[in-house]
């Protein structure tokens, strides 16, 4: 599978800022995450990259997507802890990976794996 299939999202690798943005203040990381979720029909927030997952749960989720031969954007949350912080604030979901389809959280590793095994994942990604 060509690596160009996984869109890089450089906005999420923004320069570090001193403190988390408070409510009402500009929050470029949260805005970039929200925009990425809106712009990519299938987007996976994970630890590491599809080529080099840094966690077994992320690896398993990538494997499910790849076995269905579906194109997906991937964002590595590890470079900056605020990515995970802001992602979880948006999604109300505490763990990584998180798979979004059509702007909605589909699930983490457990749900994606369950849906893969039941065939529901292929349906959801049609």
């Amino acid at each position: 599978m060509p690596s160009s299939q996984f869109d890089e999202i450089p906005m999420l690798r923004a320069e570090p800022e001193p403190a988390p943005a408070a409510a009402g203040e500009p929050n470029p990381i949260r805005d970039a995450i929200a925009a990425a979720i809106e712009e990519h029909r299938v987007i996976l927030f994970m630890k590491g990259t599809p080529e080099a997952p840094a966690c077994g749960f992320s690896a398993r989720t990538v494997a499910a997507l790849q076995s269905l031969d579906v194109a997906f954007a991937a964002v590595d949350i590890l470079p900056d802890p605020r990515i995970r912080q802001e992602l979880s604030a948006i999604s109300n979901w505490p763990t990584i990976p998180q798979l979004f389809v059509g702007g909605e959280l589909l699930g983490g590793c457990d749900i994606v794996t369950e849906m893969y095994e039941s065939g529901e994942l292929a349906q959801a990604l049609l």
Partner: protein
Amino acid sequence: MPTAEDIKQRIEAAIPGAHAEVEDYTGGGDHFRATVTAEAFAGRSRIEQHRLVYEVFGGEIGGAIHALALKTQTAAQTQTPSEPGASHAQQPVR
């Protein structure tokens, strides 16, 4: 370090009528696998079911508790052929 029994008791205390089977699958007190059966899950999506369990632990998920693999079901769903708590988390996806 919480034990599998701690995790089980906290889930069962927080979700009325819940039954939890919890395994500490690394033995390190920070990676758990739980199968939770509760009528409270009826009519809720998988996402909402898992959120109910995650909410029991708040910020501990991703903190002291590195991983909590979940399988959630209602009592009516326990008849499914797969072995509860095992197949979903261990079976590799190819």
